[in-house]
């Protein structure tokens, strides 16, 4: 759907985007992640045909973004970062106007506008003037506008910025629904957003792509260790001794909780010792009330990536995995 090759955008004295290459396949939901000023909005504006690239090739649906901008804009729904709307218009009136601009034939206009108002939960405010709506509703009007001509591709620039948690949940649910039959590229600097809605993430920093991967790959690439949490009914020292028998253990913390012992274990990246642990505990005949591997939050991954770290290479990992000191605290 989207093919971007060596995309560059210079402003006087600033490289807003440098040599960015990525692609988005039809049906995918891809998140653009990065701190403010990373070049997310610039890239999206180029895709939407608002500004032109300094260099590189951008193809959307097989059309070149500088030559066939008008054709592309007909099959693309774009929500700008500012989500600016005409405050003097009413919701339905605005969507009708935008629908006409986007060339929806007169006989379909009414049903399309009704459909997107229903999809975006705008029916109750259809006659209200946009200037009097809350931020959450305005954002929905913006998304309805992007949807009104039923485009295959949606480009949403920070769709949940400035919304309260309830409104964020609404917009997210809406995006998840849309993801079923649209290709979506959305940008955000909120990480949980990507976790909630995207299949794949492209991380930008200072105009460059620092990572582009599926969410699960990302975790295993950027997390140096994996943590396992065990709670069993036994003496802490016994659990500690047992855990030490598991291969690849790097750190082990055991505390007592009444009859129970709670162990926080750290293993090398990619290790999954849950099965071994379960077998060992069963052999001992202890009661087990919890055994799980903690999922690294994307937050940690993000901090790792944008603080200039590199993903670990296999040889570095082996070196780091050697249990030099195994401090046991109780």
């Amino acid at each position, binding site marked *: 759907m989207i093919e971007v090759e060596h995309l560059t955008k210079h402003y006087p004295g600033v490289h807003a985007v440098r040599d960015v290459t990525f692609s988005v396949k039809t049906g995918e939901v891809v998140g653009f992640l990065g701190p403010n000023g990373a070049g997310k909005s610039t890239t999206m504006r180029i895709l939407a045909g608002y500004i032109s690239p300094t260099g590189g090739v951008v193809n959307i649906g097989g059309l070149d973004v500088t030559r066939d901008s008008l054709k592309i804009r007909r099959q693309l729904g774009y929500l*700008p970062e500012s989500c600016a709307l005409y405050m003097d218009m009413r919701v339905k009136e605005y969507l009708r106007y935008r629908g006409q*601009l986007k060339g929806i034939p007169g006989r379909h206009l009414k049903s399309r506008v009704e459909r997107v108002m229903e999809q975006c939960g705008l029916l109750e405010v259809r006659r209200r003037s946009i200037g009097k709506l809350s931020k959450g509703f305005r954002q929905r009007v913006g998304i309805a506008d992007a949807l009104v001509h039923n485009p295959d591709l949606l480009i949403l620039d920070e769709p949940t910025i400035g919304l309260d948690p309830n409104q964020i949940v609404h917009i997210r649910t809406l995006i998840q629904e849309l993801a079923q039959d649209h290709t979506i590229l959305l940008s955000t600097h909120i990480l949980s957003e990507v976790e909630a809605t995207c299949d794949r993430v492209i991380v930008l920093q200072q105009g460059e792509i620092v990572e582009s991967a599926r969410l699960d790959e990302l975790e295993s690439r950027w997390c140096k260790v994996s943590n396992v949490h065990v709670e069993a009914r036994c003496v802490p020292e016994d659990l500690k001794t047992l855990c030490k028998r598991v291969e690849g253990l790097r750190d082990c913390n055991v505390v007592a909780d009444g009859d129970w012992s709670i162990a926080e274990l750290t293993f090398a990246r990619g290790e999954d010792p849950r099965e071994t642990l379960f077998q060992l505990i069963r052999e001992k005949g202890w009661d087990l009330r919890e055994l799980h591997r903690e999922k690294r939050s994307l937050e940690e991954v993000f901090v790792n990536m944008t603080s200039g770290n590199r993903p670990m290479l296999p040889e570095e990992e082996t070196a780091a995995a050697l249990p030099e000191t195994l401090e046991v605290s109780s």
Partner: protein
Amino acid sequence: MRVWLTLWKREVASIFFSPVAYILTTMFLAVMGVGFWSIASYRLTDGATIYEVLRGLYGGVAWFAVLMVIPVLTMRSFSDEKRSGTLEALLTAPVTDQEVVLAKFFGLLTVYVIMWLPTAAYILILNHLNDAQATVDTGALSGAYLGIMLIGSFFLSIGLFCSSLTENVIVSSISTFAIIGLIFLFGFLPEVSPIPALQTFARPFSPILHMLDFARGVVDTRPVVLYVSGTVFMLVATVSVLDSRRWRS
């Protein structure tokens, strides 16, 4: 064309949705009304002809109204959309920059024409006051309105251009006023310049003289070409300014 009509309708509606249009029309009609009243009541009793009244009204008073109205009418066109960010939504819709500029221009022109419509009543009043003499010459009258529309278009396109340069409506209106004010003052050169060469040079470009001619029913093709090409030039310049967002910061 359908897209263009949608844009044009939106422009006209956006002007009439704001109180500015009403305040402006009121001020405009007040200036024109007082001007008409003073010329008609004093000059006609002096034995001036109806042509002199028309010239005084459309060649004289109309200038104050035009110079006052146009900067305020045009200041919001692009500046407001730039400031609020709606320009991005507008220009990422499948419309060309040319369509947007033309729709905005003709939207402004429509409002400008609507503002002038009530002044047609003056003619009826003149005919009524003046039943002893001949009624108002339709040639002179159409000439006067043609001149007002031509010069108005040119000035509106200058206003639109200034508005595309800035997101500040004050800057936009003041720069429009400065430019059209200078063009107006330039019109006095043929009369006031002490240098004969400058007088000869400025004569074909004087909007004041053009307007006096138009109000007499003399429609010369040279000023018509001048204002039409001036308008086209300013509209092309506006499209270029809009297009510059693609490569500028």
